[in-house]
């Protein structure tokens, strides 16, 4: 087990009386790739700025390598940030940008030269030393921003939606580049994004945030397959989230039909949220289905068909399937027991806040 590199302990922060982070606790192991994932405005950037030293928490502390750095100015922290819009120095050329941190630290000319070459090679931009910032594309500027940060050999690299401004193809390429960089350098990454696919692809730990709370923390597989609440289920991928009643262990009633499931310990006749992924719904003959409905929508999506099946109570089930059923056809809905996720309905006010905003 690696020791933890950075700990956020009971961090709270509000702006103009508005609570943005509420008693946030987060521990990041050395050498991990942690992603803060959540909708816009949920406090991801604020969390990163607190770690970077650009914002002071109202309460709580930031522990880095066992040292309390809550009040340490950013220039003395042994970590570097890649900012959302690159934030390169436009009055310096590429080499000067990369050299900035090393010059401040008074490194020798030879050392700096070597580092510039090394970093440019690492981000696949060798030969760009004398180019101006303006002459670079967004993707290239982002690589320079990364190069400028990593030459300082930080223990921890903070990245705030670094790929947000890039187009899809470039974004995917850069995702692989970042994973490669991370593995080559052995630096701990804390990465911020609102893109769930990006988070699932890149991280070894995902921290799902909403409204200043951590909703769930876990590996991408855990987050995707075992969402702990309706918010996480809804935010990570598309889901059918319906009201159900847990009749007893391993049996849940949805819209009057009884589904076998694998969950236990919810009690008897307990109202619950039921999450079923669109790809986990099997469409069968009406007579073989647990529920029946009519196909009301059909779109071809390449790898699969996306269909909407409306059950008599009016709910539209989202279904992904490689089999096609035409609009208007009556179908049966079948779900395997282990594909059904049961979740407690939010009870307390805190939990309420984390619920899905519909």
């Amino acid at each position, binding site marked *: 087990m690696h020791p933890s590199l950075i700990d956020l302990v009971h961090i709270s922060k509000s702006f103009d009386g508005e609570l943005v982070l509420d008693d946030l606790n987060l521990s990041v192991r050395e050498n991990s790739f942690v992603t803060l994932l959540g909708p816009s405005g949920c406090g991801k950037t604020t969390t990163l700025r607190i770690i970077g*030293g650009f914002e002071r928490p109202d309460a709580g502390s930031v522990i880095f390598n066992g040292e309390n750095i809550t009040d340490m100015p*950013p*220039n003395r922290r042994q970590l570097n940030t890649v900012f959302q819009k690159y934030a390169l*120095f436009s*009055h310096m050329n590429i080499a000067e940008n990369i050299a*900035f941190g090393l010059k*401040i630290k008074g490194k020798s000319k030879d050392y700096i030269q070597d580092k510039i070459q090394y970093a440019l090679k690492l981000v696949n931009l060798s030969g760009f030393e004398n180019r101006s910032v303006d002459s670079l594309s967004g993707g290239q500027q982002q690589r320079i921003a990364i190069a400028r*940060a990593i030459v300082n050999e930080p223990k921890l690299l903070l990245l705030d939606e670094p790929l947000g401004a890039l187009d899809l193809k470039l974004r995917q390429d850069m995702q692989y580049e970042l994973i490669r960089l991370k593995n080559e350098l052995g630096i701990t990454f804390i990465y911020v994004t609102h893109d769930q696919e990006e988070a699932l692809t890149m991280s070894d730990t995902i921290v799902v945030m909403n409204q200043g709370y951590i909703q769930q923390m876990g590996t991408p597989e855990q987050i995707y397959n075992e969402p702990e609440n309706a918010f996480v289920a809804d935010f990570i991928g598309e889901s059918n989230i319906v009201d159900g009643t847990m009749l007893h262990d391993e049996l849940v009633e949805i819209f009057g039909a009884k589904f076998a499931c694998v969950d236990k310990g919810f009690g008897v006749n307990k109202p619950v949220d039921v999450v079923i992924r669109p790809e986990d719904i099997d469409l069968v003959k009406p007579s073989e289905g647990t529920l029946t409905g009519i196909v009301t929508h059909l779109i071809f999506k390449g790898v699969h068909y996306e269909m909407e099946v409306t059950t008599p109570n009016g709910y539209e089930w989202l279904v992904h399937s490689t089999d096609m059923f035409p609009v208007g056809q009556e179908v049966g809905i079948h779900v395997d027991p282990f594909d059904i996720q049961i979740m407690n309905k939010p009870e307390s006010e805190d939990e309420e806040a984390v619920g899905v905003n519909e």
Partner: protein
Amino acid sequence: MNKKKTSLLALPYGLWMAGFIAIPLFMVFCYGLTDRSGTFTLANVLAIATPEHRKALVLSLLLSAVSTFLCLLIAFPLALILRGRRIGRGSFILFVFILPMWMNFLLRTMAWQTLLEKNGVINALLGILGLPALSIINTPAAIVLGMVYNFLPFMVLPVYNTLAKIDDNVINAARDLGAGPFQTLIRILLPLSVPGIISGITMVFIPALTTFVISNLLGGSKILLIGNVIEQEFTRGSNWNLGAGLSMVLMIFILISMTFVAKYDKNGEGTAL
């Protein structure tokens, strides 16, 4: 749009240029390069070399340079403070700061005259506090004070404009990479605001170089700046030819400072108020 239409649309601009720039300039050249009888001569221009004119020009250049430097010294920290404020409050402070600019230039300067007079407000206050009286009215110091007071906003605005345009995260990035506040100032803020500084320098230096009102009111009749010399040739001396010739010399200095700006302020960044 075809060429004919475009040139037609530019007509008002062309007329304006001709009426207010080309014709007056042409007339200055006409007067400046002729004598009273209308024959061509360079004497009016070369008259700058006479000791009294040279003295006035040198004093003008010196006082303008000192004023410009003082303006920069005051304006930069002020613009930095304004930048650090949140937008709402910042613009209010800026507003308060610009307010005197809407007051008549003459009135403002005469106000300083009354303040600085031997029996003026400042000396009265100093007297009450038991401090010795100041006698800076009718000295170069009073002229510099008047220049700084009147032209400071022209330095603050362009400098503030360039500073305000710097992304917060550029400053954060410098801090992140290990620069302390002072290093950030020297390596990031100062170089990035050069266009504003240059444009501020010309916007203060040129009016300071050509002023005669400030020197008239605060310098008394003893201290002659080149602006006063030219003014007197047009008003009292009635030698328009000499006045125009000396103006042409002044124009050369202005042109020099303008090219200076054009070189640094390529995007017009600093000039946009």
